[in-house]
C-alpha cells in the first residue's frame, strides 16, 4: 500500500532518503528514467528525447519535523522545528528520533504541578523536549546526536466514511499521486519531480525546473481542508470528499487561468468532482516553477487535507483516486494540444 509506506517513511526537509527509496521501489518496474540532482530532487521521466511540450510535475517529499539542537545533562533532547509547526500539537506525542527511529516522548509537566494560570497558555516550543529514557547526557549521546531529525510516530489507517489518517499527507499524498501518474504512458516528454525542502521555502522545485526547462508545470499537493465545525463557509479553503482542488492563487503564485479552465473541463469530461481553493494563503512548488528561466505557466492541483502540519493529517481516499485520474487526463489533454504553448 503506497500511501501507508510513503506516509510512514521519515523525511524531514534535508533528510528525504526514506521517501526517495519508497518512490524508487514503487516505480522500479516501469520503463522510466530516474535520476537525482545536486539537491536530492528525484527526477523521473519518460520521452525525454521526443517532441511535444515538456511537462513538469512536482510533489515534495519533505515533511515538517524536528531537529535535535541540544542534549541536556539529564539526557533530555531539546529541538527546533523544521518548517511551520504549531507547538500546541506537539505536547504528549510520541516521536521517532534519528536514523534508528528511537521512540521518544514529548511530555508536559503534570497538571497537578501547574498553577492554574499556567494551564491557560500553550507551552512554548523552547520549553518542550524529547525524553528517550536516557539516564544522562552521556547515555543519550550513545544513541542520539545534535542535528538528528525527529518525526511524528503516526500509523497510516483508514477510518470513517472513506477517510485515511496519517502523518505528512502534506505532501506525501502529492508524491503518491505523482508516482501513480508516472506509471501511465504519455507521448510528450513528462518529468515527475519529487522535490526536496519545500517546507523551508520551496528550495528544491526551482533548481529542478531550471534543469528541465519545462513549458508547462503542475504542482501536486495536499492542501488545507478547513471543513470543520465553526469555520465560516468562505474560509473553508477546501472540503474533503468534494474532489481535487484547483488553486487560483496563494502567497507564492497565481495559476495560469487557461490551465485552470483546461483542468476543470477535463474533470467535467471525466465526470470527476472538483473544487476551487477558497483561500489564498500558503505557498507551493509552483511558486518557484512559475518564475524559472523566462517563466512557466503553472497550476496547483491538490488533495484536500485536514490538519496539515500536525501528527494526524486526514484525506478522503476518493479525492486521492480522483486526483490521480484528473492529472493523468490533464497531461493527455496538454500533450494533444489542449493547452497552447507559447
Amino acid at each position, binding site marked *: 500500500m503506497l500511501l501507508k509506506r510513503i506516509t510512514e517513511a521519515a523525511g524531514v526537509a534535508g533528510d528525504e532518503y526514506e521517501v526517495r527509496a519508497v518512490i524508487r521501489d514503487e516505480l522500479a518496474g516501469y520503463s522510466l528514467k530516474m535520476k537525482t540532482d545536486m539537491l536530492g530532487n528525484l527526477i523521473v521521466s519518460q520521452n525525454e528525447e521526443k517532441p511535444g511540450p515538456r511537462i513538469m510535475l512536482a510533489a515534495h517529499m519533505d515533511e515538517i519535523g524536528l531537529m535535535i539542537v541540544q542534549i541536556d545533562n539529564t539526557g533530555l533532547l531539546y529541538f527546533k522545528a523544521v518548517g511551520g509547526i504549531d507547538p500546541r500539537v506537539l505536547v*504528549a506525542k510520541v516521536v521517532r528520533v534519528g536514523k534508528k527511529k528511537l521512540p521518544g516522548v514529548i*511530555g508536559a509537566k503534570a497538571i497537578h504541578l501547574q498553577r492554574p494560570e499556567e494551564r491557560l497558555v500553550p507551552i512554548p516550543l523552547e520549553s518542550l523536549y524529547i525524553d528517550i529514557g536516557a539516564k544522562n547526557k552521556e547515555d543519550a549521546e550513545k544513541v542520539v546526536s545534535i542535528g538528528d531529525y525527529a518525526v511524528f510516530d503516526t500509523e497510516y489507517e483508514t477510518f470513517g466514511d472513506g477517510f485515511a489518517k496519517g502523518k505528512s499527507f502534506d505532501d506525501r499524498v502529492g508524491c503518491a499521486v505523482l508516482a501513480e501518474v508516472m506509471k501511465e504512458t504519455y507521448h510528450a516528454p513528462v518529468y515527475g519531480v519529487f522535490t526536496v525542502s519545500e517546507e523551508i521555502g520551496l528550495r528544491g522545485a526551482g533548481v529542478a525546473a531550471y534543469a528541465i526547462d519545462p513549458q508547462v508545470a503542475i504542482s501536486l499537493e495536499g492542501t488545507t481542508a478547513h471543513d470543520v465545525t465553526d*469555520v465560516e463557509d468562505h474560509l473553508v479553503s477546501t472540503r474533503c470528499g468534494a474532489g481535487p482542488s484547483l488553486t487560483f492563487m496563494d502567497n507564492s503564485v497565481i495559476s495560469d487561468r487557461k490551465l485552470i479552465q483546461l483542468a476543470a473541463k477535463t474533470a467535467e469530461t471525466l465526470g470527476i468532482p472538483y473544487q476551487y481553493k477558497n483561500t489564498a494563503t500558503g505557498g507551493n512548488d509552483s511558486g518557484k516553477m512559475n518564475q524559472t528561466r523566462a517563466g512557466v505557466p503553472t497550476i496547483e492541483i491538490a488533495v484536500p487535507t485536514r490538519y496539515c502540519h500536525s501528527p494526524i493529517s486526514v484525506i478522503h481516499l476518493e479525492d486521492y483516486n480522483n486526483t490521480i485520474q484528473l492529472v493523468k487526463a490533464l497531461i493527455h489533454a496538454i500533450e494533444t494540444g489542449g493547452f497552447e504553448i507559447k
Partner: protein
Amino acid sequence: MNGKEQLKSMIESTGVSGFEAPVAKLIQELFKPYTEDIRKDALGNVIAKISGSAQTNSPNIMLAGHMDEIGLMVTKIDDKGFIHVTQIGGFDQRTLPAQEVWVHGKKTLLGLVVAKPPHLTPMDERKKTIPLSGLLIDIGYPAEKAREFVQVGDLITIKRSMQELQNDWLAGKAMDDRAGVLVMLECLEELKKLKHTANVFAVATVQEEVGMRGAITSTYGIMPDIGIAIDVCHGRMPAVPEYNTSPMGGGPSIAMGPNVHPKVLALLKKVAKETRIPISLSAAPGATGTDAWAMQISQSGVATGVVSIPLRYMHTAVETLSYSDIQQSGKLLAYFIAAVDCAFVEELSCY
C-alpha cells in the same frame, strides 16, 4: 510471567473511572495464577485474596492499585459529524490537540482530537490554551451516520500503544495506575517464594481519579489491619522542584507524613535496607492523593503506607516510568508482607 507484556495489555485496555469493566476483566485473568478467591464488589473493585500460612489470627494486609484511568465523554454530535466532549478526571487540555482516541460507541471508532485550524484563529487566541469546549473529535462520518454509531454519554479514551524507551523505560497512557496493578502482580509472584502468615488482599480499585471511591468501599468490605496504596508519584524532571519529585529508576518512592502509619513506614524502610532494594523517600505533609487517604479512615482506622512509582508527565498520553521501579516495588512489598506478623499488628495501635 512477563510483566512488560502484562503492563502493555493493561494500559492499552479501557477502563475510565466508573466504567472499568473491560480492564477489570483482564486484571481478574492476571490474578488467576495466584488464587481462586477473586471477587468483585458492588462498585466493581476486583479483590484477590491470597491466604497466609497462619491457622488463626492472621494479619490482613490490603494492597490497592487503582485500575481506572481518566477519559472523555461525548456531550454532543454536531451537524458536521464532529463530537464535542467533557472529561472524567483531570486532563491537561493542552495535551489533547492532535491526539488519537478511541470512541467507544456502538462499535469502537478511531477519532482525532482537533481544533479550528491555527491560521484561521485570531493571533491573540493562538496565545491561549484551546479549552476543552473548543476541541472537536473527527470520526470521519457525516452527522447522520455519526449519530448512528455514537451517542451522548459514550466514552472516549486515548489511543496509544506502549513505547519501549531506552534503559527499560516505558511510556503510554494509563500507566497511572495500571503500573500499580502490575506492582501487585510482581509482589504476588515474589511472594510465592516466601513464607507469610498474613492474608493478602490485592485490590484493583475503581474510581480513584474521581475521589478514591473504590478504596472507600473495598477497604470497608475487607477491613484490613494494614493497607498499602500503590500509585504513581511525580518523577524527576526539569522545571519542577526536586522536593516534588522522586528519581526515575531509584526504586519505589515511600511516602512519609500523616497519611502514613509510622510503624508501617519504619518496616518498609527496614525491609528495604535488609533486602538492599533502593528506595527514595518523599514528604507528604497532607493528602497523598492516593487510595491510602480513603483507606486510613475506614471503619475504626487502618494502618496505611504508600509505595509509589516515579512517573513523568502524569495525566498525559505519554506517562513515562522505569520498569525496574515496578519490579523493585513488587519485591519490596513481598518482603514487607513476609515480615508482618500478629505481634507487629498488635503494636500498631500502641503509640
